[in-house]
């Protein structure tokens, strides 16, 4: 027989891929959040150069397809002679990508806290850092939560692009299983279910947070 049966072994293999998907997403979220907060703070800082760098970065990364970014990271690392495992290169690329979007979401959130809030805190003598820390950011976090969770969901799904450069995450393992069993419909439906089970709780959380925001 040319094709294998679609067995539990294949499902386990795909679950293993799901772990890589989650791992990749977590790395991208962590790296992207750290770099994204720096970008957001640069974008609202008084320093013109910092603002320009942040804006330029966000423009460039948002204006480039993620797949192209992944190719650049994957082939570029070897090309310049840096010997890094593909997984590391791809994680970094995802972090860069997430940083641009999170940075932009958070910049917008900080800016949408009314001007009167910073004026009020400055009039009381609070320093710029204290004003950010105690007055502006706590309010910006509330505004930023729904779009941030929304982006997290998108990011988890977008890690499927890493399959193109042979990272054995969920989509890649599904391809392999599909090729081996020639049961593409079943395999990809299962993959879709796995993605859904990871993303759905986040969507629920996002909805809840949004409702709570509307109340307050």
């Amino acid at each position, binding site marked *: 027989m040319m094709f294998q049966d679609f067995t539990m072994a294949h499902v386990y293999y795909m679950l293993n891929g799901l772990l890589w998907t989650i791992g990749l997403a977590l790395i991208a979220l962590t790296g992207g959040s750290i770099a994204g907060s720096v970008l957001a703070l640069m974008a609202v800082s008084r320093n013109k150069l910092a603002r320009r760098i942040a804006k330029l970065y966000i423009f460039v990364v948002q204006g480039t397809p993620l797949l192209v970014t992944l190719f650049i990271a994957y082939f570029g690392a070897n090309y310049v002679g840096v010997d890094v495992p593909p997984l590391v290169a791809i994680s970094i690329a995802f972090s860069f990508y997430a940083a641009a979007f999170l940075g932009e979401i958070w910049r917008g959130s900080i800016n949408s806290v009314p001007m009167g*809030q910073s*004026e009020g805190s*400055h*009039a009381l003598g*609070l*320093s710029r850092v204290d004003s950010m820390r105690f*007055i502006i950011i706590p309010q910006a976090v509330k505004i930023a939560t729904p779009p941030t969770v929304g982006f997290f969901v998108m990011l988890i799904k977008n890690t499927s692009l890493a399959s193109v450069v042979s990272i054995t995450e969920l989509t890649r393992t599904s391809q392999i299983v599909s090729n081996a069993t020639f049961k593409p419909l079943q395999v990809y439906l299962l993959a879709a279910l796995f993605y859904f089970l990871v993303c759905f709780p986040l969507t629920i959380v996002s909805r809840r947070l949004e409702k709570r925001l509307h109340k307050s």
Partner: protein
Amino acid sequence: MTSSQQEATPIIRANKMNKFFGVFHALKDIDLTVARGETVVLCGPSGSGKSTLIRCLNALENHQKGELEVAGVQLTGKRREIDMVRRKTGMVFQSFNLFPHMTVLENCMIAQMRVKKTSKEDARKVAERFLARVHIPEQAGKYPAQLSGGQQQRVAIARALCMSPEVMLFDEPTSALDPEMVREVLETMVELAREGSTMICVTHEMNFARKVANKVVFMDQGSILEIAKPDDFFTNPQHERAKEFLAQILH
């Protein structure tokens, strides 16, 4: 500086102060002296520069030409001067600008703890004292959104007073309030003035000016046109534009 000397120095001294927004000349050659303990009302038609002027006094806006000295600090745009002036001034805004994510009590404590490094317990005591002074001690645990406009503005006044400022700046404190809320805020301000606080108020409440102001400053198109005692200003305004303004506002 001895206390008598401090008494003698004016709290505000502006000398030929000018402010531009781009090419727009917002304040023209402002000369103004305010003594400690005085209550001064700034009035004038909208766009006359009165809000800009009061915002220069705690460096929310920076002037470009001329001199401005507030509470003994010459303001030349340096960070250190701005910080010093803001510690010595309190401001109440038209739109309250309370911090919505903090309770009333926390609103009154945060600056004490961060700026004056007051301990939490002491900050709480001071906050409670001033909330009592503006007659809303029972609202301490609530969030600003749970309060009426008049109550919110009184919290804003208490919040500023907690920093024991040498001068209180009021930027149209009653303009965003429903008519029935105006009185409670004005009464609080009258009490403050009578207790000897130094106050500068941008307001259209001419009864307030009559009751407690030591002088009324009339502005138009970025200039101070007239500085007079309230009685003189209301009964016998010197400037043509002041007459027009009064005719409009008193009817």
